[in-house]
C-alpha cells in the first residue's frame, strides 16, 4: 500500500542543509495497522505528511497503492488524497465556521459527489462515531473527544484505503483517547490500512507493527506482527 525506498527530505537554507528524513525505507502492506514512534524531531510528522502527499520529498521513491507519486502534479496528488487517504490530526483540524455536517462534507464536495449520496455518507459516518445528534453543532460546541470523533467521521465518510493519524489522542484524556482508538481499530477491521504516529506506548502497542524513527531513519523495524501485545508490558519496557 505504502512503500518508500531510500527516501530523503532535506530542508535547505543558504548556509545549512537539514535532513528530516535520510535513506528512509518503509513498506506498509494493504490492511496493516502500523504505529510510528520516535522522539520529538525524529521525522515522524515529516514522514506522515510525505506519506499523505502534503509535502514533496527530495530524493528516493515513494509508491502509494502501486503509483510512483514523485512525478504527479498537484491535481493528481489532490485527487489521490481525496479518494484514497484519510487524515486524523492531533489538533482535530475541523473548520470552525462549518458545523459538523458541513465539516464532514468537505472531502465529499471535492470528490464531486451528488448531494443525496453525500448526505447518506455523512449520516452513516456520524452514526458510526455516535454523533448523529450533533450534526448541526459547531466544533466550538463540542468536547475535544467529540471533535476528534467528528474528524474521524470526516475521514470515514470518504471511505479511505489509507488512514494517516498524527497523534490522534494527543489532546485527549484517557477515556476519550480509548474511545478514539477503538474507532480507529474499527476502521482497521473494516479493511483500511492505518499508519499512526504516536508518542503513546499504549497506543503503539495496539498496532500490528511498530516502526521506530530516530534522526530521520527507520530503526529496529520489527517484521513480526504483534496482534495481541499487552499495553502494560510495552509501557514498562519503555521506562
Amino acid at each position, binding site marked *: 500500500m505504502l512503500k518508500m525506498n531510500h527516501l530523503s527530505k532535506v530542508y535547505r537554507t543558504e548556509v545549512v542543509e537539514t535532513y528530516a528524513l535520510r535513506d528512509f525505507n518503509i513498506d506498509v502492506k494493504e490492511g496493516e495497522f502500523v504505529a510510528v514512534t520516535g522522539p520529538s524531531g525524529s521525522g515522524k510528522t515529516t514522514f506522515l505528511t510525505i506519506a499523505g502527499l502534503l509535502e514533496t520529498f527530495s530524493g528516493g521513491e515513494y509508491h502509494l497503492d502501486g503509483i510512483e507519486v514523485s512525478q504527479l502534479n498537484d491535481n493528481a496528488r489532490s485527487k489521490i488524497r481525496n479518494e484514497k487517504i484519510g487524515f486524523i*490530526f492531533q489538533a482535530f483540524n475541523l*473548520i470552525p465556521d462549518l458545523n459538523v455536517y458541513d465539516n464532514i462534507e468537505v472531502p465529499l*464536495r*471535492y470528490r464531486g459527489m451528488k448531494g443525496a449520496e453525500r448526505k447518506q455518507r455523512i449520516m452513516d459516518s456520524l452514526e458510526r462515531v455516535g454523533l448523529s445528534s450533533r450534526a448541526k453543532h459547531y466544533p466550538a460546541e463540542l468536547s475535544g473527544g467529540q471533535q476528534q470523533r467528528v474528524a474521524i467521521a470526516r475521514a470515514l465518510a470518504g471511505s479511505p484505503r489509507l488512514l494517516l493519524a498524527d497523534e490522534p489522542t494527543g489532546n485527549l484524556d484517557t477515556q476519550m483517547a480509548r474511545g478514539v482508538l477503538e474507532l480507529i481499530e474499527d476502521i482497521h477491521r473494516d479493511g483500511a490500512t492505518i499508519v499512526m504516529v504516536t508518542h503513546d506506548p499504549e497506543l503503539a502497542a495496539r498496532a500490528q507493527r511498530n516502526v521506530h524513527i530516530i534522526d530521520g531513519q527507520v530503526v529496529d523495524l520489527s517484521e513480526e506482527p504483534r496482534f495481541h501485545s499487552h499495553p502494560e508490558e510495552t509501557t514498562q519496557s519503555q521506562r
Partner: protein
Amino acid sequence: MFGYYFELALCSLKRNKVLTALMVLAIALGIGASMTTLTVLHVLSGDPLPDKSAKLYYPQLDPRDLSGMHPGAEPPNQVSWMDGMNLLKAGRADRQALMTGGAVAIQPAESAIDPFFEDARFTTRDFFSMFDVPFQYGHAWGKAEDDNDARLVVLSQRINDKLFGGVDSTGKTLRMGGKDFRIVGVLDSWRPTPHFYDLTTGNYSESEGVYLPLLTAIDLKFPFNGSRDCWGNGTNADMKTGLCTWMQFWVQLDTPAKASAYKQFLINYSSQQKSLGVYQREPNVRLRGLMQWLDYSKVVPSDVHLQLWLALGFLVVCLVNTVGLMLAKFLRRSGELGVRRALGASRGSVFAQLLVEAGTVGLVGGIGGLLLAVLGLWFVRMQPSDYAALAHLDLPMLAATFFLAVSATLVAGLLPAWRACVLAPAPQLKAA
C-alpha cells in the same frame, strides 16, 4: 462547485465583519466615484441616433476669403445661405436638410397662458425623416410647402402639452410672431443627446419647441439663434449671401459609395465656385459622419474626461487597499486552507474558492457603489450645466456597475488568492 464556493464566500464574509465592511466600503467608494463619472461620460458621448448615425453626414465647405489662410486649416463649421441653398437644390444626397436655430414669440389663443418666447428650428422637411423624428400626431409638411412660404408648424410634445393639454392639435391654428400658422404635426418625446444637428445652440440643449419651414421663417425675419462667421463685405444685416456661415446642412447617404461620390461632388462644387470667382480658396471640404462630427467638435466637456481619470485613479487606490485587506483575510485562514488541501482540494480549487469570495465582495461592493453612484448623479443634476439634467443611470450602466465592481475585485483578488493557494499545506496543518 461554484455554488459551494459561493456558500463558503457568504459564510466567510460573515466571519470577520469589520474586515469585510472595510473591503466592501473600499470597493463601493471606488465604484461609486467611477460609475458617476462614467455615466456622465456615457450620457454625453453616446450616439444620438444609433440606428441612423452611420448614414448621416455633415458637409463642410470653405467659402472664406484669403485673409488668415494657412495650410491645413479646417473649413467653417457651418455653411452660408448661398451654399446651403445650392447644395439643397442640387439634391445629390438620399435626403438633405438645411436649417438654423431661431426663436419665436408664441401668442396662445388660450387667455390663461401668457405669450412666451420659444426656441424654434427653421428647417426643410427632410429634417424629420432623416433624423427619425417620431410623431405623436400628424406629420411633417410636404415638399411643396418647403418652397412656397407655407405658414405651417410642427410642435414638440412639450409645447403641445402646454398649449393644448396634450390632445391632438393638428389642424388648429397657432399665432407666432403676429402670424397664424396651421399645426400639421405634433412630435412624440424626442431629445437627441447630444444636440448634434446644431451645436451652436448648445451641445446638450433641449430640442426646440416648434419647427417651421426654413423659407417661411427667413421671409418673416424671425430672430435667428446660434453663431455666425462673416468675412469680407459680409454683414449680419444681410445673411442671404455667401459671405457669412450660419446654417447647418445635413445629408443622408445610404452607402459608403454614395458618401465617396458626395464628397467628390463637394470638391467639384468648390472648384466650380472658385472658377466663378465666388470662392477664393482652393477646394477645402470635409464630409464627416455624425459620430466623427461629434468627436471633431469635442462635444464632451474636457472636465468630464478629467473627472473620469481622477475617479479611475481613486478606484485604483481603493483596489490597492482591497488587495491588502484581502491578503490579510486570506492568509489569516491558512489553517483552514491547509485542511482543505489535505482533504483533497487542489491548488486550483482553493484559488477558485478565494476568487469567488473576492467576486462576492465585489458584488456587495457593487451594490454599495450603485447607491453611491445614484447619489453622485443626483449631485451632478444639481449642477448648473446644460448636461446636468441628463445624468441618469440607464440599464447598460447599471449592468456596467456590477461588471466593473466584480471584475475589478477579481483582479484585486488575484494576488491574495494566489499567495494563499501556493502555501504549503503541511505547515498550515501544524499551525491550525
